[in-house]
């Protein structure tokens, strides 16, 4: 087994974070299979407290909070997944091309990256989602993905530049392999763990971006997500009326997700970036 992977698996922090994330995913995937009711269908009155009817009570329009939580988590994860894939794909493409080709291509691509990094992400997100005709889960996820690739591109470029000078890459080049074939077969496989790490981080930040956009009133239409639940709770005055069941579950879930990802990131960092370790 890869020694870095073995080192990771021996870390309690790593196992804890992976455990939490698996539970979260299981809740979103298995939940709707076990309980097939429609989350957008009212089961009670405005802010009914938790009861046998709805174990986490109802929200401002009488929907079952528990059901909404399951489906909302699912939507948030889907957005995270799509946005993460898009961002990682763009970042890897730009990063490997810039790092591998170097020279003018590198300068242009990194210049573009730096320009996008300097413009605040939230601004681009707001402008793009305001301009959308209708905000669907997919279009929102695409927007989030399209705005969040630059950091990945930077990191991947650095990795590629250091891999480029390896011997097996030279061998491939001398045997006449093309740029894309070398990147695909001689570069990408060697940073798979790195790309995966970038993807996980992108996924997490996409979930949080969705929540932030929803809170501003720019969430996906006609569906429920963690951010939309928070938005409804805040606009429906759930906090001020003390309906804790309506806003605490999504808040805590978002916090738990981001905390688990933080643990994951810090254990990955410690393995990949030993300078921060104490003697």
């Amino acid at each position, binding site marked *: 087994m890869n020694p870095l992977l073995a080192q990771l698996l021996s870390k309690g922090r790593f196992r804890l974070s992976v455990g939490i994330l698996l539970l979260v995913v299981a809740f979103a995937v298995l939940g709707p299979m076990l309980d097939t009711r429609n989350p957008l269908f009212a089961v009670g009155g405005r802010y009914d407290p938790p009861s046998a009817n709805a174990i986490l009570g109802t929200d401002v329009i009488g929907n079952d909070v528990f059901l909404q939580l399951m489906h909302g988590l699912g939507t948030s994860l889907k957005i995270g997944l799509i946005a993460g894939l898009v961002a990682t794909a763009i970042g890897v493409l730009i990063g490997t091309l810039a790092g591998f080709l170097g020279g003018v291509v590198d300068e242009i691509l990194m*210049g573009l990256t*730096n*320009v*996008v990094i*300097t*413009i*605040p992400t*939230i*601004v*681009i997100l*707001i*402008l793009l989602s*305001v*301009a959308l*005709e209708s905000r669907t889960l997919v279009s929102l996820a695409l927007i989030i993905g399209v705005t969040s690739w630059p950091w990945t591109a930077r990191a991947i470029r650095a990795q590629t530049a250091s891999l480029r000078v390896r011997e097996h890459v030279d061998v491939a080049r001398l045997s006449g392999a093309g740029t894309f074939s070398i990147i695909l077969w001689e570069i990408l496989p060697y940073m798979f763990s790195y790309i995966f790490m970038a993807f996980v981080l992108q996924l997490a930040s996409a979930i*949080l971006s969705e*929540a*932030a956009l929803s*809170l*501003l*009133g*720019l969430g996906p239409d006609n569906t429920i997500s963690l951010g939309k639940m*928070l938005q409804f709770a*805040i606009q429906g005055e759930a*906090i*001020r009326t*003390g309906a*804790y069941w309506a*806003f*605490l579950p999504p*808040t805590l879930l*978002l*916090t738990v997700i*981001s*905390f688990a990802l*933080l643990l994951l990131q*810090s254990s990955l960092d410690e393995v990949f970036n030993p*300078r*921060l370790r*104490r*003697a």
Partner: protein
Amino acid sequence: MRYALNKAAWYTMAFLAAVVLNYFLPRLIPGNPVDTIVARMAQGGGSEGEARQQIYQTFLKEFGLDRPPLEQFLNYLGNLLRGDLGTSFGNYPAKVADLIAASLPWTVALQLPAILLGWILGNWLGVLAAYRGGWVDRWAFLGFLALSNIPYYCLAILLLYLFSVALPLFPSFGGYAPGTTPHLSLGFVLNVLHHYTLPFLSLVLVLIGGQAVGMRSMAIYELSADYVHYQRSLGVDDRRIVRSIFRNAMLPQITGLALAIGSLVGGALLTEVVFSYPGIGSLLFTAIRQNDYPLIQGITLLVTVAVLAANFIIDLTYGLIDPRVRAAQVGER
């Protein structure tokens, strides 16, 4: 000097990119944007008949849709340079610039002290944890991480619920008691501070966490530096050593402070939304709900300009602050 020009060129490009993005926002909407805007506003129960016609004319003129595209863009740029951000139609006929000017002080007054206090306390706690080491460091570090990592709007929601609903110690919305008008009196100031506490706290806690995490790793790095070893070899006492570590670890953090101040406007929009606190965040929230494109554009442009300006100033002045960077910059030329 070449360095400065080079940087200026980069930031101009970033700025232009942002302006273009802003310019295209309403024009990306299919069809004639002015028609769409006015129609959407009408759906929202806006004004009727003659007033709507007047609004229509205003926007047609502002957008200059009857002109060729390049002229439209130059027209837009010209208006920007004159500080004219257009007319809001959520609050027609108020000018966007005036609306922003009225909200900005609230945001600055909320964020600037929070950023400064969070920065100072965070630096101090970070160095302390690094220097103490052992279990103090381990637990403090975990605490900082947890604080810095909780989404700031989640912390705001929790604080709001805990300290104004569950334990009604603080008011739950607004910048001052409803029904009062801002004036200078002790009672009013106390009232404002009372409303200020929770939003302020929710920002400071997150900032402390983030700052302390960064400062701690810088300080750990400095602790193992050769100059620390050398100072020790000459019998320099711990107090003096910590002082120089603090200084050297803090200099790079000045960048972070400037960036935080730069992203002040757009950095915590949701805090205001959660606490219904007046300011740019709440203004944007309303603008989005009313499809008030000129106002949205104005705010996003302000956010961008603030961030770009802060970055530019850092790039230009940082070498003056930190001799190490000055050396590196001299080396580059």
